[in-house]
């Protein structure tokens, strides 16, 4: 048996195994280190700060948990959110993330490490990304082998698609959810492989953790039943499947119902019905198997036919009836929007208005996954070649997640793990093939057909180069061929069969081919690493609370307007002053300014949000009663026109209009905010509704003065603002941040003389009162 390069022969298998496992451990440790380190860009470039929007709420909730204990947290009613409705926080959130941080916090304090809760929150996501890498390693190991596992771990450790949600400071549910997703899937695969009730239970426990941590648990709730269903339909029902699924479903469902926010949803909503249905189906199938083993096949045929049909009809009817009666909630809007991307925009603008609910743009696939995009299909196809139960899982996962990732940007996150797994399988198969030193035997053309399949053998395990002697390799190869699908068949098969139709021995000849391919692969990996590092540092590490720009000389310039404004609110306003803003900033105001807000990122009450939308999009006179009714003291708007910050409120304004229109179609109309030509403009051509709207006025109030007579330019919309700026009668400018990003207005009290504020203002400015003709009020005199 010729080899492409010499192999050491004096090594005992024990040494090889030990070394391999040592290398694995070291590699995993390094991968974890890399995963954590690459997520620290945010801390190093900026500071240890909580990012974005939702994390601010999680952080605030965690502080409550850490300071007041779990029971107080559970019963926490937040009177400052959704003023004046309040929010029953304990019952409307997934407490997993906060509980995790709380446990870590208490542990560290128990061993006298007085770590600040903020630092725990900031560093939780990087820490869990290391665990994710490990879970992915375990999962992929079940798919192929340890070498593929290591590759998958390395991929998931640094792939931008996952980093985008787990940089330091991105303290969100997804930070721990992906780890839980992978570990649950791993336990499920393990339970399925071994038919183990123990692993089924472990999967259920992690499933419970997942339910407690992220609303995306519904993905698991439907993935596992789908897998089980496909297995049943393929005739792969086995007692292993029965044991694994039943133990997972029974324990997992009961456990998940303990989360207050979930409650009875697992037995009441449509999203959870698939899991229940498959559970029922499994019982029927298992029962059928039992019956079959006891009765003759002819009788069984009859039984099966009648039984299946009647039960199927009964079940479907029961489901329809229950849905009709309202005992099972119909599908939610978020669910429909997964199938029809235009649905949300039409019926639930509040969902469509979130940027991460938009369909994914193609470039972002490459941005988030780079060369894994190409490897991913190859890995999925390789799964087909062997098609064990767990490979089916990966295939289903890949198909489902690809679809969802195309529909919603944020679901890229669920796609990323399977991309890493499949790509790792593909890449490790490629490496196995090309690193494997076995040279194909040169055989006669006539015998080549049989020879090829014997010779094309993969490496025995991931530790390359394969230390086994050629003899054992070929023996193993034979075994593999005989066992049919104990080891994955290799790329070389495909290569060989596609490149040459003539029957030649398949395999790789010579060192040069190998080196070329391996070098190529290493280059791709190197590019991947550099791409990931670049994307992480430049795109995904911005806290979005603090912005960075660069000075002309290249040095970094920090734009800290948000915190400046929030701290102004915190220090200059009464503690119970209600702040109105668009809902994006609700969590930040609550977290940083500690003031009550009308709406926040927990968008549970569409009407309340529409109320804010209406106030923002109507004229001052219309908005003022709304503001007074809700006790609003301050209004906060984000305005990017001065420095070109494009995520400002004017750009979000149409969503406010749309959401308000959904509730008050007679009072707010979207078309009236466009010019007659149908353009969205803020310059001289802006429509009257636009120019009278509170949002427009607050954004551009005194903006023209800034230019001292020169033409004022909105740098976001690249339009020239009218020379005469808007005036405000019902509001007072209270604060404008350094770069004008945040502007805060104070709502005036009613005029003490009972006039409307417009005429009061005119009087205070010394304008002559216009005598309007009042209606005659003459009454009969008694």
């Amino acid at each position, binding site marked *: 048996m010729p080899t492409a390069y010499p192999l050491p022969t004096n090594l005992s298998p024990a040494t090889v195994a030990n070394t391999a496992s040592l290398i694995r451990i070291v590699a995993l440790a390094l991968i974890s280190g890399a995963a954590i380190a690459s997520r620290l860009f945010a801390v190093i470039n900026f500071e240890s700060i909580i990012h974005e929007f939702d994390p601010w709420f999680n952080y605030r909730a965690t502080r409550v948990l850490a300071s007041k204990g779990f029971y107080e947290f559970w019963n926490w009613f937040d009177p400052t959110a959704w003023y004046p409705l309040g929010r029953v926080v304990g019952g409307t959130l997934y407490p997993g993330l906060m509980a995790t941080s709380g446990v870590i916090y208490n542990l560290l304090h128990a061993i006298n490490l007085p770590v600040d809760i903020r630092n725990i929150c900031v560093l939780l996501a990087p820490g869990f990304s290391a665990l994710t890498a490990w879970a992915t390693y375990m999962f992929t190991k079940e798919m192929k082998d340890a070498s593929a596992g290591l590759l998958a771990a390395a991929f998931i450790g640094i792939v931008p698609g996952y980093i985008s949600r787990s940089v330091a400071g991105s303290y969100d549910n997804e930070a721990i959810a992906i780890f839980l997703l992978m570990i649950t899937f791993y336990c499920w695969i393990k339970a399925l492989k071994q038919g183990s009730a123990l692993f089924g239970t472990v999967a259920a426990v992690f499933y419970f953790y997942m339910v407690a941590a992220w609303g995306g648990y519904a993905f698991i709730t439907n993935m596992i039943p789908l897998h089980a269903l496909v297995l049943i339909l393929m005739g792969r029902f086995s007692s292993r499947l029965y044991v694994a699924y039943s133990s997972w479903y029974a324990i997992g469902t009961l456990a998940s119902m303990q989360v207050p926010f979930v409650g009875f949803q697992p037995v009441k909503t449509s999203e959870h019905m698939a899991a229940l249905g498959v559970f029922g189906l499994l019982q029927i199938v298992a029962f059928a198997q039992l019956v079959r083993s006891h009765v003759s096949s002819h009788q069984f045929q009859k039984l099966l036919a009648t039984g299946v049909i009647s039960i199927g009809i009964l079940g479907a009817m029961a489901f329809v009836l229950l849905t009709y009666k309202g005992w099972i909630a119909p599908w939610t809007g978020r669910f429909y929007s997964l199938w029809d991307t235009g649905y949300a925009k039409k019926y639930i603008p509040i969902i469509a208005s979130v940027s991460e609910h938009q369909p994914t743009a193609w470039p972002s696939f490459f941005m988030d996954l780079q060369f894994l995009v190409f490897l991913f299909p190859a890995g999925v196809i390789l799964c087909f070649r062997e098609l064990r139960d767990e490979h089916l899982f990966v295939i289903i996962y890949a198909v489902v997640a690809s679809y969802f990732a195309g529909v919603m940007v944020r679901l890229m996150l669920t796609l990323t793990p399977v991309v890493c797994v499949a790509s790792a399988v593909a890449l490790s198969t490629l490496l196995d093939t090309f690193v494997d030193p076995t040279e194909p035997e040169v055989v006669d053309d006539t015998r080549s057909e049989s020879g090829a399949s014997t010779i094309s053998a993969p490496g025995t395990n991931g530790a390359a180069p394969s230390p086994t002697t050629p003899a054992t390799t070929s023996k193993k190869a034979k075994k593999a061929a005989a066992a049919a699908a104990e080891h994955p068949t290799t790329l070389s098969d495909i290569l060989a069969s596609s490149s040459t139709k003539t029957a030649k021995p398949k395999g790789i000849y010579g060192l040069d081919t190998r080196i070329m391919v391996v070098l190529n692969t290493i280059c791709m990996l190197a590019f991947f690493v550099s791409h990931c590092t670049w994307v992480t540092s430049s795109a995904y590490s911005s806290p979005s609370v603090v912005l960075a720009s660069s000075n002309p000389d290249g040095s970094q310039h920090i734009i800290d307007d948000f915190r400046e404004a929030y701290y102004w609110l915190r220090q200059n306003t009464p503690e119970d002053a209600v702040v109105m803003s668009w809902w994006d900033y609700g969590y930040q105001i609550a977290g940083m300014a500690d003031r009550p807000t009308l709406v926040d990122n927990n968008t549970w009450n569409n009407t309340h949000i529409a109320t804010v939308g209406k106030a923002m999009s109507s004229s001052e006179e219309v908005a003022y009663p709304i503001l007074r009714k809700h006790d609003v003291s301050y209004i906060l708007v984000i305005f990017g026109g001065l420095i070109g910050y494009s995520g400002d409120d004017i750009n979000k304004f149409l969503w406010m209009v749309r959401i308000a229109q959904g509730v008050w179609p007679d009072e707010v109309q979207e078309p009236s905010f466009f010019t007659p030509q149908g353009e969205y403009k803020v310059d001289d051509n802006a429509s009257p509704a636009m120019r009278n709207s509170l949002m427009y006025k607050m954004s551009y109030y005194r903006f023209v003065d800034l230019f001292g007579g020169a033409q004022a330019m909105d740098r976001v919309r690249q339009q020239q603002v009218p020379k005469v700026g808007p005036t405000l009668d019902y509001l007072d400018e209270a604060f404008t941040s350094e770069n004008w990003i945040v502007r805060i207005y104070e709502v005036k009290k009613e005029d*003490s003389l*009972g*006039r409307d504020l417009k005429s009061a203002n005119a*009087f205070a400015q010394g304008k002559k009162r216009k005598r309007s*003709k009042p209606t005659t009020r003459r009454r009969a005199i008694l």
Partner: protein
Amino acid sequence: MVYLRSLLFLIAGFATGLNAKSSTGDSVLVIVEPKQQDNYSLFLNGLKKQGYDLTFRAPKAEAPVVIEYDDPTFAHVILLASENKVFAKDITPQSLVELLGKKTNLIIALSPKQTPLSSLAAEFSLTLPPPGTPLISYFPKREGPPSVIPVSVPATHSILSENLHPVWFSGVPHSLGNNPLLVPILRAPAESFAAETDGGSPDALVDAAERGGEGLWAGSQLGLVTGFQTLDGSRVTWVGGAAIFSDEYATKEVSKGVPSGNLQFARDVAKWTFQESNVLRIDRTTHNLVNSTKSLEQYTTNDQIVYSAYISKYDSKTSTWAPYSGIKDLQLEFTMLDPHIRTALLPVPGVPGKYSAAFRAPDRHGVFKFLINYKRKGLTSLQSSTTVAVVPPRHDGYPRFLSAAWPYYTGAISTSVAFFLFSAMWLAGDSHEKRAKGHKAE
């Protein structure tokens, strides 16, 4: 000893007699032309005797300013210079409104002439006739010009003393807008009307009447002396003519042997304007659960809540606040966006000044406000808002072991028992089964 004590009482009484009676301060600025100052001596000396600290200032004098460093210098201002067209820099309609915002009370006299003050009146929903058209009336038949009119005073009025004699009035009437903050004090006689007196053309009046859409300024709907209480609680009294305060009218007889009520009327008006009479306040409010005294920050839905308010009235005779139980129509609202509960807040018998209401919190969680919003003409408006959260029950606050849930309990217990029995039988029957299986295999 007795003598000494009575002396002490005398001093004390003297002292209280000299003490200012206003609840907001005793410094008064009188803006009047120095020449006319003596015309109002009876009224002004009366104020002085009451204990007010009067400062006089000519309309064009620069000092003392009314607002210095954003602080009002005086607690009350009387503007008797009604005919002046030009005032010092710091006395403008805007600064007068600003004064009101700073809790200063004003008495403003108008005149038939067009002055800055007559344009200010429009801000208070008072519509004046065009310049040069004072109120005239030819009834009752009397000596003297028709523009000097005896006006009978309502017998019972919350501001005025009872059964006042008619008062002499000369000046300009105003029609009242529909501003709820206006407090009419003196109305014009039904036979009176505004008209040009010194040979002017009536066209201006007709034009103005048409423009205003109010018809002519005539009849008893017109106001002559009108109070105005701002939302901040400060009070203004608009007087159609400064002469109503004058010594001449105070001493002029209405009819034979009947003295005019001017002096008492002026005193009553000043009393009301300077926050001596009809002044109420909420001392404190409390809320707690029934059968408890501790005030909670948040209540649970369906709790029984007691809310109490303690209200005092200012007693100008003793310059003290005394508990006041005289309000019969006080209401309490428990509000979240809309009032969820509106109930009468009744005086508690036996506890002076305490008003209390007990009610069940709505079955709705949220941030609620206990609201008192009591606005009556002439009285200080009472406003109080206390925010509390109404929260759902705690996780262990729900009732346990409901009788209605027995089907579920039975289900759970029977399943547990059945499972236990099944396991026991399974385990006990194990060896037998195995043997049977073994037989089969063999």
